[in-house]
């Protein structure tokens, strides 16, 4: 049953190492973090098909990838939703969604929810920036994508700020914000 006994607590993950992982991709080659030896960093967004708040960000995900991939920081989207509960979150459902929204980035299925657990992701959308340092992937930002769901023109991008700062060698001034959206129900609580 989705949601009973869920008391989401914020777990601080800034500075944590992300172990290389592999996930099935619904719209291209399967993703393996270990393949990206020369990439500076990734924007990693946990999102899904059905959540009304995640739906607001579809164009922004394309825009962020278009801007930052060429600067060496590609965006990947990960779907952690349990397709037993939400029937549109199967791989086939994700394929349709990616096609409909014209995703220009990989949309990966976290069927076991292991990757979402590793990041302690709580909502969709829940966004992270991971950065390569000394051969390891380190989490440098966690939280919301920006501060305005319905009005992108008025939004201040927390992801954009973090990536810009990291690209210019600076510290991330706002490494953590509260994510908001639909709660991720983890199997087994």
């Amino acid at each position, binding site marked *: 049953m989705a949601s009973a006994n869920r008391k989401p607590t914020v777990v601080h993950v800034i500075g944590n190492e992300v172990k290389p992982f592999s996930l099935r991709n619904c719209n291209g080659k399967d993703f393996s973090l270990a393949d990206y030896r020369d990439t500076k960093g990734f924007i990693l967004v946990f999102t899904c098909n059905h959540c009304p708040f995640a739906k607001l960000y579809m164009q922004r995900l394309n825009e962020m990838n278009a801007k930052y991939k060429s600067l060496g920081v590609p965006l990947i989207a990960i779907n952690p939703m349990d397709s037993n509960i939400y029937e549109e979150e199967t791989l086939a459902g994700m394929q349709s969604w990616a096609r409909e929204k014209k995703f220009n980035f990989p949309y990966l299925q976290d069927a076991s929810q292991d990757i979402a657990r590793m990041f302690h992701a709580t909502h969709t959308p829940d966004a992270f920036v991971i950065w390569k340092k000394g051969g390891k992937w380190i989490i440098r930002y966690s939280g919301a994508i920006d*501060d305005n769901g*319905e009005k992108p023109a008025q939004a201040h991008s927390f992801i954009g700020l973090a990536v810009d700062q990291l690209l210019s060698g600076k510290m991330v001034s706002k490494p953590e*914000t*509260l994510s908001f959206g639909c709660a991720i129900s983890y199997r087994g609580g």
Partner: protein
Amino acid sequence: MRKIYCLRLVLVLLAPLTPIHAQYKNLWIPDTISGKTFNLNIRDTFSQLISTGNQTITGGINGKFWGPTLFFQKGDTVHLNVHSFLNDSTTLHWHGMHLPAVMDGGPHQIIPPGTVWQPYWKVNNQAGTFWYHPHLHEMTTEQLIKGIGGFIIVRDSLESTLPLPRKYGVDDLPIVLTSRKYDANNQFITTNTAYGDYMLTNGTPNAQVSLPKQIVRLRLLNAETERGYNLGFSDNRTFYIIGNDGGLLNAPVAVTRVKLLVGERVEILVNLSGDAIGSSIDLKAFNSGQAFGFPGGEPNSTGQFGSLLNNIDFGVLHINVAATTTNPITSIPTVLANNTYWTATDATVSRAISITDGQPGPGNPPFALDHTPFVLSYINKTVDLNAIEKWTVTNNNVFGHTFHIHDVQFKIVARNGNAAAVGAYESGWKDVMSVPVNESVSFVAKFEDYADALHPYMYHCHFSNHEDGGMMGQFTVNNPASVNPVSAKPIDFAIMPNPAMDRLYVQLADQANSVYYLTIVTITGRTVLMLPQPQLAHGIDISFLKPGNYLIQVMDEKTKSLSTRSFIKQ
């Protein structure tokens, strides 16, 4: 004009306004649904509650926040199509309604995401103001704060003949009082908080409404987490209580203040015919200086039990007086209903419940009833069908609470063992009562019409944070005359057509059987349709299902055994 400006300035000094909202916003009046079929679609959505910055995630039924007002006619059988599109499971409880336990929408009638639940019942309640809201264990606070809920207004032939205001949204208004705290992203804070900092009246921050210069009727509901409201008007004028939780009183009760605690409704009449058009008064919460244990009287303005609205007087609705309508009500009726109430001597069974635990401090157990935290599978009490019982709830606890019981309306017969101590303001039929510190409150109710050994009704403190913490119990109403079935053979049935497209028909092999519950489940185990005590003669509407293979599970009324068949939806 100057008078209004000064009033606004005084309000700014006295009470916090929603951030950036220095102006009043027009009160939202919920839409209505009338008739016998009610379609409720529960969705996650969002609303610009704070004027700058992010939208607030809310839960709405057929809309952005809260839900439509349902008009029921006493005697009608109403059919509810509840379709949850929420990300989370939920339930929808028909608060105050007398109906079968399996239709009640309490913690046992869980609606998973994407599922349709179709309860139905005969409206037995007399005319009054009721409500519907989520009741999923440990999630009730969060889902209530999100805004899921709505009013039910029952009409009957007696109330329709009375000279009362009845033009919905014009001189007869539903008013739901709540408050909220917001985080840095403008989202509702739903954990570790008892009281909001900013009012939302019908989901409207800093609400104002135009009411006509005549007698107006306000149906007030407290849908807070914990806060009580000591309601009155800014000029301390007299107003008239005409109804409690369960319906009209026998005669209006004149007051200048009324305490409205969580879950309670009160219907009042207020006379605006002496007010100048263009003038304003405020409905206010006079919450300062209350006795210890009044929820919202704590001195803290921050922290888990703090709030900017604690222990102060603040406005909950700004009323601007406008022109009289045609056919106004211009006098307060002297006679209302003709209720005959239970007395203590009617009761054949007495029960005692204590409010326990909840002492502040780490490691202390949360508030409970009789030291027994709620367990979903444990039935605390068994009541005989048609019993008239007296329940006494005693509070020797650190804080005030409310007590709500499902299924019945009760009559409060004593406070501290004294019948004369029961207030005139609470002398009608009720389903929620205030239990202050160091008080005991007794009520009498009759548990009639519906018996079910399997599905229970709930009783609990209606502070949703206490309820979620386990301050709840459950009872079944049992029919001592019912015979235990000998055979546990599963019910035999056929389904046709198969494959089916729009409607599915269930044919029981033995017409003596009846179906207690029918669910349709996907082959991966996801419930899509919940039909309690289904009426199968006209078939089941499956047009909304996606094509594929499904399982239909039928539970037999007598034995409660399950039988399963599969079918294909084309």
